[in-house]
């Protein structure tokens, strides 16, 4: 019995952890390329969820099928945000950048409420609804699909960054902007690309969790703190770090909540973050 519960808790933690990882990789990518912390990242997630919701409601396209569309849409949103706002604060001090993305966060929430009402919505019957039981362990199919999707997207991102020309250029910009510019890489283009990809990752995460999570304008605020924790724990700018940290955070959160008390689950995760930072001031895989 106890072993069963433990196993169940670990599986649940792993599933949610993979989703945290997916939300966080976009955030960490943007940070890695241009040293900007995007406070509006949770809102990209929210937009991704709404994109799935409308695709389902208006065109009866299942969120899972709509994922590519969601990704493309959010890629566009990321580019637009970059071109209209971020590009203009590139040279500003860190505080102005925080200010700008914070404003963006409020703006996107406001717009969502304006256009789509503050209501909570849910996609009632996705393709992937239902449950699977594996021996004593139960899990929701949506969660499993979302977790698998998270692995897939993160893997694809890793492949893109390390095995394609464009991705390598992006990675080069992340490592040394000036050197990359000297090598003929267009920095502006890379930044825009980072925002596009970052937003698309958040959008994909949104599309994947839209199958089981309520959708509302403020939904980003549920995820953003955890996403920050994952990014910092993994080390700002490290995609692999964020992936690992996401899983760790998911496991610790669910396990800690189960063992110590759910009211402290966030505190447990945050304490872990502080402890790790004390030992490794740049996170688990942060670049020195």
């Amino acid at each position, binding site marked *: 019995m106890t072993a069963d519960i433990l196993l169940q808790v670990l599986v649940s933690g792993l599933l949610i952890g993979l989703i945290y990882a997916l939300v966080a990789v976009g955030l960490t990518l943007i940070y890695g390329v241009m040293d900007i912390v995007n406070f509006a990242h949770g809102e990209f997630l929210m937009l991704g969820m709404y994109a799935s919701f409308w695709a389902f409601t208006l065109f009866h396209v299942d969120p899972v099928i709509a994922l590519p569309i969601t990704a493309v849409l959010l890629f566009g949103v990321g580019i637009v945000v970059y071109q209209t706002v971020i590009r203009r604060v590139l040279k500003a001090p*860190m505080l*102005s950048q925080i200010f700008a993305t*914070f404003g963006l966060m409020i*703006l996107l929430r406001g717009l*969502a409420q*304006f256009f789509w009402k503050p209501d909570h919505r849910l996609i009632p019957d996705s393709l992937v609804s239902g449950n699977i039981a594996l021996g004593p362990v139960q899990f929701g199919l949506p969660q499993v699909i979302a977790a698998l999707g998270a692995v897939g997207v993160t893997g694809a991102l890793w492949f893109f960054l390390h095995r394609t020309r464009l991705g390598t250029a992006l990675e080069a910009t992340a490592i040394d902007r000036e050197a990359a510019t000297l090598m003929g890489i267009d920095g502006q283009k890379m930044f825009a690309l980072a925002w596009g990809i970052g937003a698309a990752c958040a959008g994909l995460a949104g599309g994947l969790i839209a199958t089981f999570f309520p959708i509302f304008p403020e939904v980003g605020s549920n995820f953003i703190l955890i996403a920050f924790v994952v990014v910092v724990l993994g080390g700002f700018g490290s995609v692999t770090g964020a992936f690992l940290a996401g899983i760790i955070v998911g496991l610790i959160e669910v396990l800690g909540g189960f063992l110590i008390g759910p009211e402290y689950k966030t505190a447990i995760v*945050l304490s872990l973050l502080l402890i790790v930072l004390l030992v490794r001031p740049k996170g688990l895989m942060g670049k020195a």
Partner: protein
Amino acid sequence: MSNRTVLDPRKALGAVALLAFALLLPLGITDPARLNFFILILMGAQLGVAWNIVGGYAGQVSLGHAVFYGIGAYCSTMLALSLGLSPWIGMLAGGLLAVVFALVMGWPCFRLKGHYFAMATIAVAEIVQILVTNSEFLEGAVGLSLPLDRSGLAAMVFLSKLPYYYIILGLLVVTVLVAWAIERSHIGYYFRAIKDEPEAARALGVSLTRYKLIALSVSAFLTAVGGSFYAQKEMFIDPGSVFVGAISIKIALVAILGGVGTLMGPVLGAVILITIEEYSRTLFGSTGSGTDMIIYAMMIILVAVFSPAGVMGLLQDLRRHLPGAGKTSETR
């Protein structure tokens, strides 16, 4: 003594005029809601100036100042409720408790740099919020209410808004004076040196930890005092109103909007931010369509995009470029 250390008479005159204006302002206001509006501005300004000491001058961006604010609010309220202590004493006690907390938290956190430091401050503040929310001793999420029946100067509870106005004006003046004194002393120079080039500062004998801790402690003390004032004004506090991240962000926003590292920037920032916030809400908030948030957000983004140095930076740019303006006596 070099003549430059003497007060610039024009600035002194300006300060006196500003203070006189602030002192006389309530005389022309009969409407308590409008007076309340000015109190909110002064509260925002006081917190902004306090944050600016560590976040602006010393360049250590804290996004967890709500923890000090909450400590101040809870400390004075608990002392008043359990021991019947006057909030004036509670305010000082809250400030000191915040200093102790700042030292404990700063010691490890100051090993971190930049965004890592900022994130650590968020984490600390969130943890404290969770602990307070689950603390039986502090009444958890239920919060603490101050009784209405004990009013008067000693209890710092008033039926009229006017005493609150003057108290917070007094606190703001004290806070600005502290910031001013720091700015002019060697500590202020050290703060700016640490912000600009920490390594170079060390090579000149500046202990980073020591001066960062000084900055955080002073800032924490003043922020806690602001928290105690909030408790006295609203007479009800709960973790959700004094320990939340939104407070931390707002405190920083006030300073950033006005211009970090300038003495009066946060005051200007508070005037603008609170005005936009209050009036976008009263004018558009009642529609329930989120318009107020949209307007508020647009303002924030515009300032961030067009004026990275805050409104104060804009004003200085203008002064430098406008023909016939006085030669730049600005030293920064």
